[in-house]
């Protein structure tokens, strides 16, 4: 055993999601990275983990990391790109965590960066379809939206919900986003707006999908805190897998990889799920956010729409779900999306604006996932001091 050290999040930054046509991967990366670099001062960053899903498909760029570290004047610092679809960020966080935990580096940066708007939507759909089993799903036109839509249909049938009941997810996420200056969607949404929005994949509507954005977000992990007041420590990490062709799954309403990742992280942190105060889930589609909560054990299966509409998952409760507004409000920057969740969670635990009203709570959990239950990661953050 060479686990000798603790791992702290000592800096964080986020470029709000948007259509950053004037910026490429390098500029977005630099914007997020230089901000965390300035926060840590002269700390030696041993390596940079870059979470990115689509640079080969959308920007014709392989070995992305090399060009990013050179761009920020750190040519001899290895920047390692992690590609795990839209779940790249969580895997990059785990790899970075392991490097610090194992004592290989004192400090490691993790940067998620993605440019979704370099192509038109039908080409982006094709890129997203590569997160399916492409030979047998994407080949026939299956996309992640189609998979989520069928999961939504199964969920509605299984628990007896109408579409209107599930519309509570986008309503709540837009409400949270309207109070978050870092959000991309900062407008409240009414049931009428949602019911009148276009159908993406029946029964899934536009408001059920996290809007694609360009963006970047970064943290620095170190083996000691850089200040002695409130700091964020990573208490546990977990990873789970259930990658399979959709037809070989027994159920579309349980995310096995999320359940396994959660249990692994809780075990490492010596916690039970009831200890968790705040949660950020990977709601690329509203149904996936609900299934994640239920698969993590935070909400009983089939209860999420009911609890949400009662306000039982809003600020002041335990747990508070997606105080940031989730990816629904923050936007969906592909492989960087998990870093948006991580940075939001750090800000929430630190009570930074606009999360100052959440109060001093101890534990936050972040869930990231690639595709439909393919590979999931869960990280537990603790506010200490």
């Amino acid at each position: 055993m060479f686990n000798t050290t603790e791992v702290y999040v000592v800096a964080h930054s986020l470029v709000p999601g948007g259509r950053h046509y004037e910026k490429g991967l390098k500029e977005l990366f630099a914007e997020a990275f230089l901000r965390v670099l300035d926060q840590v001062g002269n700390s030696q960053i041993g390596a940079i983990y870059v979470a990115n899903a689509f640079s080969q498909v959308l920007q014709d760029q392989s070995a992305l990391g090399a060009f990013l570290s050179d761009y920020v004047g750190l040519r001899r610092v290895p920047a390692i790109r992690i590609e795990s679809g839209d779940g790249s960020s969580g895997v990059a966080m785990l790899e970075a965590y392991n490097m610090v935990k194992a004592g290989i580096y004192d400090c490691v940066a993790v940067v998620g960066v993605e440019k979704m708007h370099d192509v038109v939507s039908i080409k982006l759909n094709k890129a997203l379809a590569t997160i399916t089993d492409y030979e047998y799903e994407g080949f026939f036109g299956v996309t992640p939206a189609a998979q989520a839509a069928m999961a939504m249909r199964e969920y509605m049938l299984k628990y007896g919900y109408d579409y209107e009941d599930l519309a509570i997810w986008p309503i709540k996420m837009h409400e949270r986003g309207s109070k978050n200056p870092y959000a991309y969607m900062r407008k409240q949404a009414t049931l009428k707006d949602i019911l009148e929005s276009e159908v993406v994949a029946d029964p899934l509507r536009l408001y059920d999908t996290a809007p694609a954005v360009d963006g970047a977000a970064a943290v620095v992990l170190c083996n000691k805190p850089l200040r002695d007041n409130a700091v964020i420590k990573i208490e546990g990490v977990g990873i789970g897998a259930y990658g399979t062709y959709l037809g070989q799954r027994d159920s579309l309403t349980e995310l096995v990889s999320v359940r396994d990742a959660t249990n692994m992280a809780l075990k490492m942190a010596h916690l039970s799920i009831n200890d968790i105060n705040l949660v950020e889930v990977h709601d690329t589609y509203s149904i996936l956010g609900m299934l994640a909560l239920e698969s993590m054990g935070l909400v009983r299966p089939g209860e999420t729409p009911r609890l949400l509409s009662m306000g039982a998952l809003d600020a002041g409760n335990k747990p508070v779900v997606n105080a940031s507004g989730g990816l629904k409000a923050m936007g969906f920057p592909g492989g960087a999306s998990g870093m948006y969740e991580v940075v939001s969670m750090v800000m929430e635990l630190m009570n930074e604006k606009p999360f100052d009203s959440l109060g001093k709570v101890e534990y936050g959990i972040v869930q990231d996932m690639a595709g439909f239950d393919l590979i999931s990661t869960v990280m537990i953050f603790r506010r200490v001091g």
Partner: protein
Amino acid sequence: MVEQRLSVPRYWRRIPQYYRLEGVQCVKCGRIYYPPRAVCECGSREFRPYQLPSMGKLLNFTVLYSVPAEFEKMKPLIIGIVDLGGVRVVGQIVDCMNPEKLTPGMDVEVVFRMVKMDGTYGLINYGYKFRPLDNC
């Protein structure tokens, strides 16, 4: 039509699956898999080819309006999960002008159709799709 530069060998090596829905059956325990895989749940690595039946039942479906580039001219696509003799296959549901008439449990048959084409002079990819037996 968008130029896809579809790869010949990538398509050609999947012809048994795309044309005939050829899965595999474990020689030891009899489990059937589609798509084929190298190791069975029982641990065995011995399989024989197994052709799925051509009649089945619709289990779940969605009408997909936001499609990838190569399907732009065919939208909306109906994507469904079909049970073929106990094996579930994901694919397109075709010959259905009124998707609101689709219901889980309805009978479907396997049909052979064009899946995508690569511009005017490129490769045409064929494969299985599913057609409801009752008009819809």
